[in-house]
């Protein structure tokens, strides 16, 4: 990913950093001057810059990963591949099998149910698997869940507590949207108990390594509870056994306590930097929020909006977003704004334009996060304002088919993740998973970006396909720029950390449809090899 040297056959490494990249015979001056060993273990492999996911959520992952997966899409996890379960019968068989494997008495949490594949879910259906063991079936979207009788008993949720309108169908054990708040509150002892959370973070560590990452971004530290999250991350994601570093980007409103005002935010965010350790680093970054989630169709869209006429949501009043943005912009921060729909992106760009008029800045790194649906005109504005894009391209794979029918119509659904346009306009553009929204597999994100094939097998807007080279940049050097780490990692050149992802084959020359299946042989973090045994 160093355009001055797109390929090489040797890398010289010392003290965790790259000393020289190129050809072995040209390295002789270094070799003559210093004692060295020659390591040919990767001679049949392809050494890529270490992959970077610039936007995921370790805390959410820690809650999800201890659960069992039964999913319509394939999920590659370190402890095994979760093969697609696409019918109701298969779903029931999987539930029965998991119930049989699990130690008696322990509650069984299942994630990944979706009615389009798995048929109607309900309390009785789960009771048929077991009425003794507490079982909770979580919807893929995370916005609803079902419990069997034993789980209702375990959580002490009683029928007389449930009122009409609470979005709880007690007789069916179904909790959705607002009703989910009650269920989560009562399930928290099982979900967020310190030992459970720590076990979940251990699993996350494996997932990150198996995805081939050497750097990640936690793009909302403090999502649930700032201090407990920061402490758990510090104890589990730093240490010699951790093969990646994490950029911590604080949740802009979670760092304020009590009567602290928005204007206090930048100083508080600066204090966080004092907590930095070798692998975990806050920086002069902040995360802010604009419109609702793309997965739940709560993004704000410009006309003609959603087919059924419903409206998206603002996550904070535009005036408050502006107040936050102004505080951090004038303090010189790199601002990351969660913006999913084209109206959300429009507001974000309007505010950025206002900030540029108040105090012009260059290299400010302002990043639009998620970038679900945008317009071609906005691409030009992003370029003009000097912003960059970090996109969850998996939306296109999982949602474009259904959104074309039951959301926003074919034209706009096919043009989600308008990424080739970003590259054409020379906008720094990265891919992320927002894990657990998409698999934490950069090669999978790259595969979607290059092929733009949705889950139904249809190519959606071939004009926006990236080349393999662009996609690889989007999961390495461009992602490093998004996290403010490009001076240290993201490409292979003298002086950077020796962060590599070792593949069996070259993603730039293999059949594009195979990119997501390329085997990751090992990762190298600051010169230390971490083999993958899969």
């Amino acid at each position, binding site marked *: 990913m160093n355009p001055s040297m797109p390929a090489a056959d040797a890398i010289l490494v010392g003290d965790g950093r790259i000393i020289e990249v190129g050809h072995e015979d040209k390295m002789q001056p270094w070799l003559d001057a210093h004692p060295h060993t020659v390591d040919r273990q990767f001679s049949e492999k392809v050494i890529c810059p270490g992959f970077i996911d610039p936007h995921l959520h370790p805390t959410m992952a820690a809650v999800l990963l201890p659960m069992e997966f039964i999913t319509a899409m394939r999920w590659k996890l370190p402890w095994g591949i979760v093969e697609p379960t696409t019918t109701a019968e298969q779903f029931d068989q999987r539930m029965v099998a998991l119930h049989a494997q699990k130690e008696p008495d322990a509650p069984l949490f299942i994630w990944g149910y979706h*009615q*389009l594949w798995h*048929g*109607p879910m*309900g309390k009785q259906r789960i009771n048929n698997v077991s009425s003794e063991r507490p079982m909770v079936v979580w919807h893929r979207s995370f916005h609803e869940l079902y419990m069997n009788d034993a789980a209702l008993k375990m959580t002490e*949720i009683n029928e*007389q*507590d*449930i*009122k*009409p*309108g*609470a*979005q709880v*169908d007690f*007789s*069916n054990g*179904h909790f*959705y*949207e*607002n009703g989910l*708040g*009650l269920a*989560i*509150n009562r399930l928290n002892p099982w979900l967020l108990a310190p030992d459970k959370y720590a076990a979940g973070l251990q699993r996350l560590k494996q997932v990150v390594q198996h995805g081939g990452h050497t750097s990640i971004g936690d793009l909302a530290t403090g999502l*649930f509870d700032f201090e407990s999250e920061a402490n758990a991350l510090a104890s589990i994601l730093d240490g010699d056994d951790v093969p990646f570093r994490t950029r911590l980007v604080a949740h802009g409103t979670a760092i304020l306590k*009590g*009567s*602290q*005002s928005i204007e206090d935010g930048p100083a508080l965010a600066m204090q966080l930097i004092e907590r930095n350790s070798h692998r975990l680093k806050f920086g002069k970054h902040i995360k802010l929020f604009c419109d609702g989630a793309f997965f739940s*169709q709560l993004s*704000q869209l410009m006309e003609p909006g959603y087919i*059924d*006429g*419903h*409206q998206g*949501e*603002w*996550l*904070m*009043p*535009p*005036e*408050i977003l502006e107040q936050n943005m102004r505080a951090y912009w004038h303090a010189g921060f790199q601002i990351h704004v969660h913006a999913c729909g084209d*109206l959300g992106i*429009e*507001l974000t760009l309007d505010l950025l334009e206002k900030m540029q008029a108040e105090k012009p800045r260059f290299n400010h790194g302002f990043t639009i996060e998620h970038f679900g649906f945008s317009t071609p005109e906005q691409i030009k504005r992003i370029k003009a304002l000097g912003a960059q894009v970090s996109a969850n391209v998996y939306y296109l794979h999982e949602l474009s088919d259904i959104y074309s*029918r*039951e959301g926003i119509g074919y034209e706009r659904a096919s043009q989600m993740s308008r990424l080739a346009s970003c590259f054409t306009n020379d906008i720094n553009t990265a891919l992320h998973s927002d894990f657990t929204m998409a698999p934490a597999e950069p090669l999978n994100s790259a595969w979607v970006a290059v092929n733009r094939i949705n889950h139904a097998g249809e190519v959606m807007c071939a004009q926006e396909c990236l080349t393999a080279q662009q996609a690889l940049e989007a999961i390495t050097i461009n992602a490093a720029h998004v996290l403010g780490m490009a001076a240290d990692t993201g490409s292979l050149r003298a002086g950077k950390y020796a962060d590599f992802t070792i593949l069996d084959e070259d993603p730039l020359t293999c059949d594009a449809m195979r990119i997501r299946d390329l085997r990751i042989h090992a990762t190298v973090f600051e010169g230390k090899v971490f083999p993958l045994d899969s």
Partner: protein
Amino acid sequence: MKQRLIPITIISGYLGSGKTTFINRLLAADVLPSKVAVLVNDFGDINIDAKLIAQISDDGSVVSLTNGCVCCTLQDDLANTFERISSLAIDHVLLEASGVALPNKLRTQCHYPGYFPQHCAVTVDAENYHKKRQDKYVGNLVQQQVLQADTLIITKLDLAGSFELPDSHDPGRPNSTDLSPAKQYSVTDPQLIYHLLEPVKGLNYKPGSSSDMASFSSCTLEQHRPIDIQELSDLLATVPAQIERIKGFVDTPTGLQLIQKVGKRCSIVPADAAQNPGLVFIYPSQAANPAEVLQVNWKPWMTLRGNHLHSAHHPEQS
């Protein structure tokens, strides 16, 4: 013993429309009855006279007042706050909503065990409302807030002189029609607080409906073969959970039946006039389309009408 539910009065309204000023006015005038819990977004802009403060909790999130009321901050989410205050001796909640929340969604959130939404008032800034409702980003939101209110609290009349709601709100969205106008009070009206703590008559909101859903869709099955009543009743009991209402006529061996199902309540009674047999299933537009499931389960007796993927759209559940 059946526990009494605690009523919640919601104070909604867009940012800057006067919610906090109104709450400060109530606290300063010391007019709140005893045992009211006031839930606010944060204490930053709340002024509580030091004379009124009896105690402050260790974490600073709960302030007990000498008149028997408490003020709490809404930390993270509403559900957590309800759990936190459930041990306090209170018999009414006054809830200050976030500026971007919609009343109908808030009402749903207030159906937490032990609580119910009694009244929703929306503050309207007399000076700026007409400009705000045309705003590119929040115009629709502020109009929806007004349309979903039980009571409108008109603020800043001293600056504006007078205030009138526009005759016709922008009907750009289907759910903005068909709602009765809310009663208007000036924020300075001394009767206002007593009105807000009372149940409302002639609500916009229909209790029992999941009215945070902006709109409803439907699909229709047409009958081609009579169905046994027991079988019919079993099928009606097991329709997908997102279906909120079923109505229509069904041909059975014992004659035509009128079917009406709302939530769990289902009635099957002989129809008194000839009708075309068939059932309409109504579900929130945001929920999954149940057509495919219905088509499979009801196949021996009924078939789906028309293109089920383009389901009919209902502006309001009727």
